[in-house]
């Protein structure tokens, strides 16, 4: 009995330590964002937990520099990506989960290899493509996101469709539903949690994307949050106060998404990796 109690206490301690390590960076960023510059860089004040003279200047500065415009860009880009990627993934995953045809193994293998390929392979040619079509610095960047988000979305949807019993469709087809009607009116409502999961995962992936936006949208006007925040590090100075303030502002949407949709996120993370 005594050993059981020790293990329990030990487990609790490890979990507490884990949580502390996970949370500490966010905590430190939050308190820094309220410090004035001279305290952040001051030798004696840099490691104070509470700022001597708390200030909102950092927030005001990043708002003046248009961080909200980047947040807006991120929302636009991530929303467009989510809408079209989930639509395309739903249509194709339905067929891939339900119809047996020659070459299906190859299709699945291609989807999987695209998700495994280094993203760096596509960046150069896509830059050239966008340059030739004169669509650099535009929201067209969302189309390029398909190379990173589509395979995962299809994968999650296939896993969900496979869980729906075949008999439901057979009943629908006996009742005279066409393939499109079966998908739209019968299967889609049942698969909605799966659709939602892949939507959340796609949204997060698009929200977090850095490499493609940095390369294709050099213009500040079209930069998304990850790129815009890094642009606050200039060649001559690193404005930690502004960077931490901006980080706090952009972590908030992520925090809300995680709090609201953690079930879907965990389901999305594990589908494909864990077999039921």
């Amino acid at each position, binding site marked *: 009995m005594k050993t059981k109690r020790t293990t329990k206490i030990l*487990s609790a301690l*490890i*979990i507490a330590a*884990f949580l502390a390590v*996970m949370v500490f*960076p966010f905590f430190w*960023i939050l308190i820094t964002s309220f410090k004035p510059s001279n305290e952040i860089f001051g*030798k004696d004040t*840099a490691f104070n937990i509470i700022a001597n003279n708390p200030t909102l200047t950092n927030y005001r500065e990043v708002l003046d520099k248009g961080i909200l415009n980047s947040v807006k860009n991120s929302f636009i880009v991530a929303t467009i990506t989510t809408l079209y990627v989930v*639509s*395309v*993934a739903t*249509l*194709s995953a339905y067929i891939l989960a339900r*119809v*047996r*045809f*020659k070459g*299906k*193994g190859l299709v699945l293998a291609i989807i*999987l290899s*695209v998700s495994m*390929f*280094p*993203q*760096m*392979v*596509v*960046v*150069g*040619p896509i830059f*050239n*493509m966008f340059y030739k079509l004169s669509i650099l610095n535009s929201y067209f960047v969302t189309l390029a996101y*398909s*190379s990173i988000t589509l395979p995962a979305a*299809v994968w999650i949807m296939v896993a969900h469709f496979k869980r729906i019993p075949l008999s439901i469709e057979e009943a629908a087809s006996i009742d005279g539903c066409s393939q*499109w009607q079966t*998908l739209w009116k019968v299967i889609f409502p049942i698969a909605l949690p799966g659709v939602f999961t892949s939507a959340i995962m796609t949204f*997060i992936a698009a*929200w*977090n*994307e*850095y*490499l493609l936006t940095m*390369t294709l949208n050099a213009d500040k006007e079209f930069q998304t949050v990850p790129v815009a*925040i*890094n642009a606050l*590090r200039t060649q001559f100075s690193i404005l930690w106060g502004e960077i*931490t303030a901006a*980080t706090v502002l952009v*972590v908030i949407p992520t925090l809300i998404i995680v*709090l609201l949709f*953690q079930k879907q*996120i*965990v389901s999305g993370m594990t589908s*494909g*990796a*864990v*077999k*039921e």
Partner: protein
Amino acid sequence: MRKTITAKQAAFLLPLFLLLAVFALYPIISSAVYSLFDYRTNDQQAAGLYTSDNFNAPLFIEDCGYITWFLEDDITLVSQADQAELRAVMDRVNALATKYATAEGVIKIPSAEADKLFAAVSEIEADIQAVYERNGHVSFYNGWEKLNTILAEMHTCLINSNFTGLSAYAKLLHDTRFFRSLQSTVIFTVISVSLEIVFGMGLALIMNQAIKGIGGVRTTALIPWAIPTAVSALMWSYMYDGSSGIIAKIFTDIGLIASPERMLLSAGGAMSAAILADVWKTTPYMALLLLAGLQIIDKVLYESAKIDGAGPAKTFFRITLPLLKPSLLVALLFRTLDAFRVYDLIAVLTGGAQGTETLSIYAYKLMIAQNNYGYGAVVVLAMALCVGMIAFVFVKVLGAEIVRDD
């Protein structure tokens, strides 16, 4: 299930195929093509994929015009014999100009023709130079200097084919910077993934025991995973900062590093910094994946193991690990590939300095910063080959099941 696919069903797949074709397969094939050329967009002579020699006919004709025009001025100042010689040269120049008079813009010409053409230009050059040298004492209106400039420009009218075939791949084998970045990538991948597996497994085992309060732990664990890597890397680069970084200070105080500046500005420090930031961000992901795998193991098995008197270590190695193997392998495969392709984290944290230049960083510098698409593509494809080998080992040798088609 049906064995064939109807046209209607195929139409459902069409958008997927279109997107993958344009934004995945076409770029991959393009990269393969780039790798066969010395393709550099910042060099006019190599800014395209030229399989044959290209000839700038309008510029060439213009230059021919200048040559005859300059010679026309100077010809009266030399002897009869030299005048006759220059006349002959001018005829030859005019003949060349007339030959391409109908050509519009830059045209493709066969190598043999290009060689012949520029051999003729070189002969003309030699002949003109000879005449001017013979008359070195004469003060000409234009003189050899001016003609030489025009003749030199004529040679740039020919853009040689920049098709290099597989020679760039041979260059890769002698590229020490490539092998150094491969080494950094492997070190980063092996250490960070090993740490993540160990920590992730420990956390998953604990979370699997204690169900109470797991929701809160899970939510907290998701946040580092969900925020953009570029942002988390920036957070860490602040905490690693030599003058105001808290982590750099703590590590100095406990004696891990000699001074705070060494965190990002020494070779070992920078790599450890990158690994630590990566482990922080992805251990929760690993823990949640393994936890999901643990939760599908039948509890009855643990009960019977207990009855049979198996200790915790034996239970772990005989029951948990074998049953967790499928989830573990898939999680390991995806994490290994992610770590191998790492870009955002390193780019923000160190930019590839202090021995942290990974393959992605090197390839990006070549392609986007130096506009060297040809060699950049070679590096990127070598990287893709490594990724393919990693996946092959996991799937074929270790037996990770990723494609299920039932």
